[in-house]
């Protein structure tokens, strides 16, 4: 009994300590906000500026000299291997900004939460973070972002969506999200027009098409774009597996037989598969084993650079068959922004391997950087002030890492329609690169250019 008593005592002490620690933290933050708002001429004014301090509410602490930015990231879920380098990109970007004076002397600090790609967690972490950050550096996943959309609007907080669902470009669906890159639906049009033209030039005939996708906004948005492109190009869809690929639940394995049979049996010239990297490689590997030699592509998140890794069983095949598209320039791109990115990584993360997704972090961070700076200059660095600043941004340039973005004007005019095409390059990977070579820099296909955007391609309902 005596021993147990000691344990309980310790437990109780730990609880009390944790409780005290937390409440103490709360009081200091509120105190800081109170002093800065009531006394603008506080002693801690940033050195560079003579302007009055901007108004602040949540997520900016002048005393600590910090701006807090929330990150709703999938670090250990199905897209974890892709989102982790994006978060790395973010942190390197902000380290550099902070080292060079920050935002008028304020350092940006990221508060990263791992949502595991579970909407429930996403909502929970959103609830926690909205009380401590000024804006969200990214929000991973469409159903997840959809789940917090109304709250973002009600709470007046900005978020950069880490999802390319076409609905984010529709103001009716969102007012506080600042998307970037061509949506899945437009991307599919660009990819298919590019591949179809190339096929026709090589073979003198139009290619036949197999469309396969996962369900939900991601797969269906992409598949609808592919179907629109097929109709516009006059391509015959010989196999349609739209929305049929179900990513396996944890602890189970994916059976690609249905799709392998469908694709191989249809003898399609182009297989357009929008899926998770895991399901994509299953379908591709199965078809390869049966001797299928068509052209393969799909929305960008289907691709994982690990496909051409040294131990990958599909290394040789996929290097021959795959044509990828991207929203951002890959690691080896000549764009000035990418050169700067590589230099920063060499300086700040010398051990980090080359990865194509760092650029995504840079683009997201750049949008937020522009919004925060503008909000500061407007004298309103509140959560709502950052939203207002972001909505007035025009022609945000990323130094070629991604196509420039604009957030004012008609949705149809400002919709991003540019994609980039790349090929897997195992030799580049072995030489220490990211394993991709750009074959067509950012371009807009005729179909995408002519597409009248009136709302999401795939309507994500109620």
């Amino acid at each position, binding site marked *: 009994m005596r021993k147990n008593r000691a344990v309980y005592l310790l437990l109780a002490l730990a609880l009390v300590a944790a409780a005290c620690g937390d409440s103490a933290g709360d009081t200091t933050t509120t105190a800081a906000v109170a002093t800065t708002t009531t006394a603008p001429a506080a002693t801690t004014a940033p050195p560079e500026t003579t302007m009055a301090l901007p108004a602040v509410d949540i997520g900016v602490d002048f005393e600590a000299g910090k701006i807090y930015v929330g990150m709703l990231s999938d*670090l*250990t879920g199905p897209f974890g291997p892709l989102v982790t380098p994006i978060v790395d990109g973010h942190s390197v970007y902000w380290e550099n900004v902070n080292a060079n004076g920050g935002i008028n002397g304020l350092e940006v600090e990221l508060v990263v939460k791992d949502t595991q790609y579970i909407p429930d967690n996403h*909502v*929970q972490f959103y609830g926690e973070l909205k009380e401590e950050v000024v804006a969200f550096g990214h929000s991973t996943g469409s*159903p997840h972002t959809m*789940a917090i959309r109304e709250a973002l609007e009600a709470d007046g907080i900005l978020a950069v969506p880490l999802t390319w669902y076409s609905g984010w470009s529709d103001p009716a669906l969102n007012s506080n999200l600042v998307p970037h890159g061509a949506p899945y639906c437009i991307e599919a049009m660009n990819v298919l027009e590019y591949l179809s033209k190339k096929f026709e030039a090589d073979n003198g005939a139009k290619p036949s098409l197999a469309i396969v996708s996962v369900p939900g906004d991601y797969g269906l948005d992409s598949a609808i774009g592919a179907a629109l492109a097929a109709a516009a190009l006059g391509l015959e869809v010989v196999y349609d597996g739209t929305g049929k690929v179900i990513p396996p639940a944890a602890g189970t394995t994916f059976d690609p037989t249905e799709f392998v049979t469908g694709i191989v049996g249809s003898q399609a010239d182009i297989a357009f598969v929008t899926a998770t990297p895991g399901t994509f490689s299953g379908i591709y590997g199965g078809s390869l084993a049966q001797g299928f030699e068509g052209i393969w592509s799909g929305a960008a998140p289907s691709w994982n650079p690990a496909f051409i890794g040294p131990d990958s069983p599909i290394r040789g095949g996929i290097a021959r068959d795959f044509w990828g598209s991207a929203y951002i320039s890959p690691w080896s791109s000549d764009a000035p922004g990418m050169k700067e990115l590589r230099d920063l990584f060499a300086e700040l993360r010398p051990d980090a391997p080359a990865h194509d997704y760092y650029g995504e972090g840079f683009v997201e961070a750049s949008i937020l950087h522009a919004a925060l700076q503008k909000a500061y200059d407007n004298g309103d660095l509140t959560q709502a002030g950052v939203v207002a600043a972001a909505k007035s941004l025009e022609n945000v340039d990323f130094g070629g890492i991604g196509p420039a973005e604009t957030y004012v004007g008609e949705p149809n005019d400002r919709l991003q329609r540019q994609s980039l095409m790349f090929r897997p390059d195992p030799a580049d990977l072995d030489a220490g690169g990211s394993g991709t070579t750009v074959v067509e820099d950012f371009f807009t296909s005729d179909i995408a250019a002519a597409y009248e955007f009136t709302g999401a391609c795939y309507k994500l309902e109620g």
Partner: protein
Amino acid sequence: MRGRPLLFTKYTADQALLPTGTKKVMAAIFVALLVSIPFDLIPGLGFLAANDWLKTLTRVFIFAIGALGLNILTGLAGQVSLGHAFFMGIGAYAAAVLGAAPGALWGLGLPIWIWLPAAGLVAALVGVIVAPTAVRVRGLYLGIVTLALVVIGGWLFRNTESATGGSQAGRNFPPFELRLWQEEKPFLSFAEDGPWFGIDLSAEAKTYFFLLVLVAVFTLVAKNIQRTRVGRAFQAIRDRDVAAEIMGVDEFRYKMLAFAISSFFAGVAGALLASFVGRMIPESWDLALSVQLIAIVLIGGAGTVSGTLMGAGFVVIVPRFVQELTDLLKETIEEGEGVLARIGDVFIATSGSDGGIINTLPGSGPGLSVFQLNLVLFGLLIIAFLIFEPLGLYGIWLRIRNYWKGWPFTY
């Protein structure tokens, strides 16, 4: 009988809700404590009044309702069930179809006093439909049958798009709003800040109180089921089903009843969870959710109502504590001074090259994410409780209680 709290001269006194004076006082203090939390009246618990902690506590209440249901089936009647998440899903979608605004997806726009009980009833009905299969088997086989429910449910939810919104897309659920019928403005909304009876409350605090009332009602119901004829029949079946039947307990009937009641609780909890979260995808109602509920019942103490409540608090709040503790340690390490920073550095990896059990940037190097650590922690806790303290947190509480009962004469 003053001074002899354990001497009961009537069965009714023995079976009373709160048989002793101490229990009455404790229960009153506990309820008063819970009610006072959003008003920040108790020093040291002030942090709980913050909106995000209120949300965590609200989540505790929702899981408590679901776990109380599982406790009736597993703890009282002894029927292992891995299918609780399925019934929660059924309840959630019944609520959505009845309560959500009409649109492209099914939705009738009915008020909460219809959709919430209906969510429970529909789930109970489904429970009764599947029960005849389930009550024919027991033990491991029952576990497999109920596991199948989760798998079938996963397929069903993915493919009934008009009700569920479809795989990876999901749908919105009706908010916590009280309407008499389908009038434009609810007369009581839990989703908006504003005064209630002259007291200014945040939306989070309102939801908290709403769920507090519900969890109180369901606790009473669960407690009452336990201490009546039905509850005793359940326990008789749990302890020895053959003997129970010889004594005249209709095994089939009571097992069916246990399934129905437990599914009712699950359905209501599912509807509440979905409404609380706002939008969920069909993949949410998976085995992991069932396991979480089983963890609550086992860690709390199978067969006890207060244990289940403690378990719900434990399972929902511990991950939050681990997260906060990790963040705290991370900050200490980054500041770099003191003993705590050195100790923390052993456990926590703050960058890819750093070693440690927990990695604050998972995926960038070795080490578990906080979530994975929590899973490991729950697994270890379930094993530890099953071996060392089968009564769970309730058992620990019992020992503390018994210690103080005799204090200072503990020998």
